[in-house]
């Protein structure tokens, strides 16, 4: 990897860490984990289920908010504040800038997820007093959440490369919501006829399939996850992320920085 990508990623990570909004969101995530403990205590025999469901959902939602909130400003803010001028006037290729920004944000989210995961496992230990073997599946759910973040980061960057932060946020949130119901959309497509079927099928396969990456409920109910699922989800997320990032690079390579 080009050292410039590493430097841009490190600076993006540093910016995120010094951003107070990020700290607030982490605090909120921890607060939600605290709430999980509270709900777990007032639930009878389903404390573990409630804590895993609530904790992992919180990790996912807060991560998505952070990914979109920071991702949409990664390029547009640099253009608006003209900080990009002194970066691109150096031997930095535009694609290196985009890829560096992506890795910086992805790194931030991985670190963020790591700390929130500690909160979830802490809450689980608090209510269950010990870990059991199926709890290892939580790690798979967390891995899928990270894959989800990679897709969202790349989408936020894609929108940020040609649109305003507000519109980018709307697009990214919309895709997240629609993508979360991608399985339902595919189900609807199979029932529809004619042009509707064609359009619904196209939309179902175009939007990111976040429902495939959501195994929180399965993990909470200790249902097994196959290695095939892990492989498929990994390949899918990497493919989708690469396509979205390539789109961001293609747009950004042609953009005039007025």
């Amino acid at each position: 990897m080009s050292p410039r990508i590493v430097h841009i990623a490190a600076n993006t990570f540093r910016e995120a860490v010094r951003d107070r909004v990020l700290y607030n969101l982490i605090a909120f995530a921890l607060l939600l984990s605290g709430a999980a403990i509270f709900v777990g205590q007032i639930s009878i025999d389903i404390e573990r289920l409630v804590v895993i469901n609530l904790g992992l959902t919180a990790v996912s939602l807060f991560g998505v908010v952070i990914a979109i909130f920071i991702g949409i400003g990664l390029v547009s803010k640099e253009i608006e504040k003209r900080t990009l001028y002194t970066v691109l006037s150096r031997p930095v290729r535009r694609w290196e800038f985009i890829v560096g920004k992506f890795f910086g944000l992805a790194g931030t989210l991985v670190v963020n997820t790591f700390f929130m995961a500690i909160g979830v496992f802490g809450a689980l230990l608090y209510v269950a007093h010990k870990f059991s073997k199926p709890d290892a599946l939580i790690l798979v759910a967390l891995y899928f959440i990270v894959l989800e973040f990679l897709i969202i980061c790349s989408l936020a960057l894609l929108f940020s490369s040609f649109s305003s932060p507000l519109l980018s946020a709307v697009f990214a949130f919309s895709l997240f919501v629609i993508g979360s119901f991608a399985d339902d959309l595919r189900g609807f497509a199979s029932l529809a006829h004619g042009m509707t079927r064609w359009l619904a099928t196209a939309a179902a396969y175009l939007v990111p399939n976040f429902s495939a990456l959501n195994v929180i409920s399965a993990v909470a109910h200790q249902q097994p996850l196959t290695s095939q699922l892990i492989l498929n989800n990994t390949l899918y997320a990497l493919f989708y992320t690469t396509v979205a990032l390539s789109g961001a690079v293609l747009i950004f390579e042609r953009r005039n920085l007025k």
Partner: protein
Amino acid sequence: MAAIEILGLEKTYMVGFWRKRPKRALQPLHLTVEEGEIFGFLGPNGAGKTTTLKMLMGLVFPTSGTARILGHEWTDPEIKAQIGFLPEQPYFYDYLTAHELLDYYGQLSGVPAKDRKRRVEEVLQRVGLTDIKGVQLRKFSKGMLQRAGIAQAILHNPKLVFFDEPMSGLDPLGRREVRDLMEQLKQEGKTVFFSTHILSDAEALCDRVAIIHQGELRGVGAVEDLTSTVQGKVEVVWQGTQIPASMKALGAECHVTGDTVRAVLPENQQDAAIDALRRERIRLIAITPLRTSLEAYFVEKLQKSPTTGKTVGTAV
């Protein structure tokens, strides 16, 4: 070898929301800047100076034309390791300190890690930014940001430096320091290309200047040539506000400014003017051949379009 060769760079933007219409920001520009010179790119606000600089930096793509920088295609990213750029009214990552910012830019410019810390300290010292360790850029004044901007432009010891309005936001002392710095850069063999609309800076610093207005190059030349002596006229300056009648009789155009009088008169009347002042016991301060000021040349070029020869605008 020329440091910069601009070969017909042109930029037309499409403006308007529904019905897009072309708006030409820069007409085909042909310009050569030699190595080791300080070159001033002059023009009023909105003349096309920043558009030209942005195209050379690869921030804006030209509609047509090309350029060569230090003998290489200007689109070659590696050539940028030898270029420094200060944008107009620079803004930086405000969560960083000046040391962190310069370290980051040093990394991007490929300054080796072992040299970076020393280079950062050196350039901060050079632009007069001391006692700022640990202070984030968000707490910097406009003048301090401008100095940080100059520091990042020269950090990697570039051969060619582009400054867009480098004096902007600086107090008189700061402007003087930047002028000195630019002269030092020239002495070090570097080429300095800077845009400005402050003519006194250009006149004091530049070897050559180009004048641009409404996206059109109006004139290029050495400052000495542009401010050449006006044949047959001298300027006489004396102490006081008194204008002797004998001076008026010599055909002098006199202007009182404070406690001095400036008179412009034909060169062959010079001795008679000195005698007239002596007779009146008036203290003579100076007699100099009258020169066209850069300002006069600038105004003339702005008012006349080279393509039509007609007066097209008013003086700034």
